[in-house]
């Protein structure tokens, strides 16, 4: 991946393509590259939907190689939701294909001078850009079908739905999966709105005639990959729990812990939890679609296979297996205990191109405002349809929980830096609250997700019994996560790394043998720190202050039943997270 593809959508005479060497960005991938380009090339104070913003799509360092689990992709820009730097991550097929085409990144720049909507086609020989009115306001599913009819089913698509075209701050970018369905999304932060502002509806990626990327030390790479896969398969989380139940396996556990945000973060436990748990979901999928329906990868080369396929009551495909965060956002958070309704909401979100977390949180706020009743599944479906149609109410909802709360006068709005919190109440799991508050991305559970900090030894030994331990843990997790996000590796590899030092070594060997240099844990830590530093500097220049690294006040005042706890980490401690 020695080149960057830049498409200036605002050039005189129409979009212009330029391919250039990676230059000073050499050796970077995924989040490291998106954040480097955004922080260096995008004016921090620009309007996120202006010509000055850039949308950077970057496969991971190992994407396009034969490395297992390496098909994740990063999408970066200045976020219309948070106003700060953004990296949203997705699975799907395009990452491997872009890597094989040799591109370290595709950068959409400028802004069309008219309201034309474009499609981009990329193969090994050419980049073709055409205006295509027929794509206007199509859902992601229809776009994928149209592209498949034209280009065949061996290509992959990166697209936006109507939400992206309407430049809504909750709009996602969709990536097609192994079945050519637009089910994998870079969901967070409104990256779809930025793609919409560039006038690009779909990028078709065709890697026909391209070979897998070759490692520098092929023999060592092969050995390391084998050991890495074996490590993932033998670990109970990556080898059994996730493949059997998917991420929604967390529902019962978080609910039992009393940390499952329910009805817009009013309670920590949901009565209807068992009806929407991962166990129930997996049994439902397997009963309706046959054994194995609950186990599926999100991209080729995935050996964990934490996804699945959800079938409706008549046994027809409805959507991919909704993730834990989706089931929570549209389920418990809205008082909805109907898996079929939640799956329908997931399908609508995917088709309109919306972040499921932001939409579920937004509907929760709307329910608190009295727009619909908690537990009313049909009302929730109708609200998402309003977003898809772009009605005045839909435009409000499609711009996220913060905007919706402001418009309808709701105080309990669970956001940080304008982005909705995911499925873990920070009063129950306080360390996650530290990450929500301080991450560069706005409230984001994946910003501090890579439970490898103890292995990496970041920041020395943590004393778990001291209050400041929360701060150190969050810091270390954010550093480790930023590094893994740059490799193109799925974050779920972290569990095998956490418990099995030999699997961590296999990952280092995989990265080292691919690039031809020996890597250590310190190198990984250094990479993570450098990414966070770039992102923090961008946000500071965009106007972010330490006062924005806070949870909303009500988390410090309102006790969360059943354990009646508040968020107790002091502001002065939060200010120490990046003090390394």
């Amino acid at each position, binding site marked *: 991946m020695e080149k960057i593809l830049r498409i200036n959508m605002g050039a005189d005479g129409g979009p212009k393509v330029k391919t250039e060497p990676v230059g000073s960005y050499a050796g970077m991938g995924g989040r490291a590259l998106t954040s480097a380009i955004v922080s260096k090339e995008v004016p921090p104070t620009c309007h996120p939907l202006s010509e000055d913003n850039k949308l950077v799509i970057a496969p991971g360092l190992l994407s396009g190689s034969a490395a297992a689990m390496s098909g994740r992709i990063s999408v970066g820009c200045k976020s219309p939701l948070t106003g700060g730097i953004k990296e949203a991550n997705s699975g799907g097929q395009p990452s491997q294909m872009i890597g094989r085409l040799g591109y370290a990144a595709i950068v959409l720049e400028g802004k069309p001078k008219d309201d034309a909507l474009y499609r981009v086609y990329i193969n090994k020989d050419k980049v073709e850009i055409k205006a295509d009115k027929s794509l206007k306001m199509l859902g992601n599913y229809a776009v994928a079908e149209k592209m498949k009819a034209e280009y065949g089913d061996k290509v992959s698509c990166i697209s936006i739905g109507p939400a992206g075209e309407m430049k809504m701050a909750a709009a996602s970018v969709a990536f097609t999966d192994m079945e050519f369905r637009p089910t994998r999304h870079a969901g967070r932060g409104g990256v779809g709105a930025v793609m919409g502002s560039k006038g690009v509806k779909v990028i078709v990626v065709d890697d026909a005639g391209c070979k897998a990327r070759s490692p520098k030390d092929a023999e060592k790479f092969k050995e390391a990959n084998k050991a890495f896969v074996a490590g993932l398969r033998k670990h109970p989380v990556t080898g059994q729990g996730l493949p059997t139940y998917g991420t929604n396996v967390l529902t019962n*556990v978080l609910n039992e*812990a009393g940390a499952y945000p329910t009805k817009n973060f009013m309670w920590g436990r949901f009565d209807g939890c068992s009806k929407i748990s991962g166990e129930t979901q997996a*049994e439902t999928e397997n009963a309706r679609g046959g054994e194995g329906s609950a186990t599926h990868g999100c991209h080729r080369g995935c050996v964990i296979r934490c996804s699945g396929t959800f079938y409706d009551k008549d046994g027809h495909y409805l959507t991919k297996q909704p993730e834990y965060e989706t089931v929570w956002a549209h389920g418990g958070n809205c008082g909805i205990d109907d898996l079929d309704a939640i799956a329908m909401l997931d399908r609508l979100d995917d088709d309109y191109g919306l972040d499921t977390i932001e939409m579920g949180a937004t509907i929760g706020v709307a329910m608190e405002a009295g727009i619909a009743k908690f537990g009313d599944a049909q009302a929730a479906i109708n609200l998402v349809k309003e977003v898809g149609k772009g009605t005045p109410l839909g435009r409000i909802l499609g711009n996220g929980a913060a905007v919706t709360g402001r418009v309808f006068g709701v105080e309990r709005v669970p956001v940080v830096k304008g982005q909705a919190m995911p499925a873990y109440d920070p009063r*129950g799991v306080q360390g996650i609250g530290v990450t929500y508050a301080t991450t560069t991305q706005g409230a984001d559970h994946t910003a501090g997700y890579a*439970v490898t900090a103890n292995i990496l030894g970041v920041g020395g030994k943590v004393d778990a019994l001291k209050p400041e331990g929360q701060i150190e843990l969050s810091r270390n997790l954010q550093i480790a996560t930023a590094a893994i996000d740059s490799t193109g590796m799925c974050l779920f590899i972290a*569990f095998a790394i956490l418990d099995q030092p030999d699997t961590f070594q296999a990952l280092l060997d995989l990265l080292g043998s691919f690039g031809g240099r020996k890597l250590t844990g310190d190198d990984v830590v250094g990479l993570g720190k450098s990414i966070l530093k770039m992102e923090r500097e961008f946000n500071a220049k965009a106007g972010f202050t330490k006062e924005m690294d806070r949870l909303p006040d009500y988390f410090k005042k309102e006790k969360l039943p059943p354990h009646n706890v508040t968020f107790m980490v002091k502001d002065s401690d939060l200010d120490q997270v990046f003090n390394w």
Partner: protein
Amino acid sequence: MKTPTQPSPAPMDLSLTMSGSAVSRFFPILGEGLLVRGPGAESVEGFLQKAAGVSPAYLKDVVQTVFLDGRALDDCSTTVLGDGAVLALSAAMPGLAGAVLRRGGFYAAMRRPISHEGGGAAAAGAEITVTLKLFNLVARDLGPGLLGRGILLPGSRLKDFIARQGRWIWKGCRGATVDGRRVGVEEVPGLIRPGREVVLTVASEQ
């Protein structure tokens, strides 16, 4: 004058025979809680071994996450169970939350306000009833044995569970008996009374 209380009716005995892997349709109900009666004054580990047949080795190696009365528990060997306790068992879980909730895990400090402090005491010799919830792989591992021997449930819980599964729950059901009488599967929901406990036995026909 004191009104004599009605003795609780004996639990209804519902036995189902399912084909092969169809037994798993009933695993999710294990996560809602079954009633387990056993000796008082026992540690979590001792109670599980004596009353539910869960070996200490399985508890140590597979059950990575334990909740007692909704709080994450780190020490199963000294914490004593009382009557009416709710105990939930889970295998290792993904996500940071999974790592945080793990028994004695590196990230346990991140959930201190919802951790169980351990301890507790109960009178020796008295029988206690504990609601036991089995989640995910623990339900899959222990489910066939427990369901094969029979689990005790409130009738309302089973009735509600069957109702929301729809027709899929009976896929692969080869036969049903209620209190020893052979019945059609379509009759089963109507025979379950919310106020009467049920001993549910689900056997696998290979």
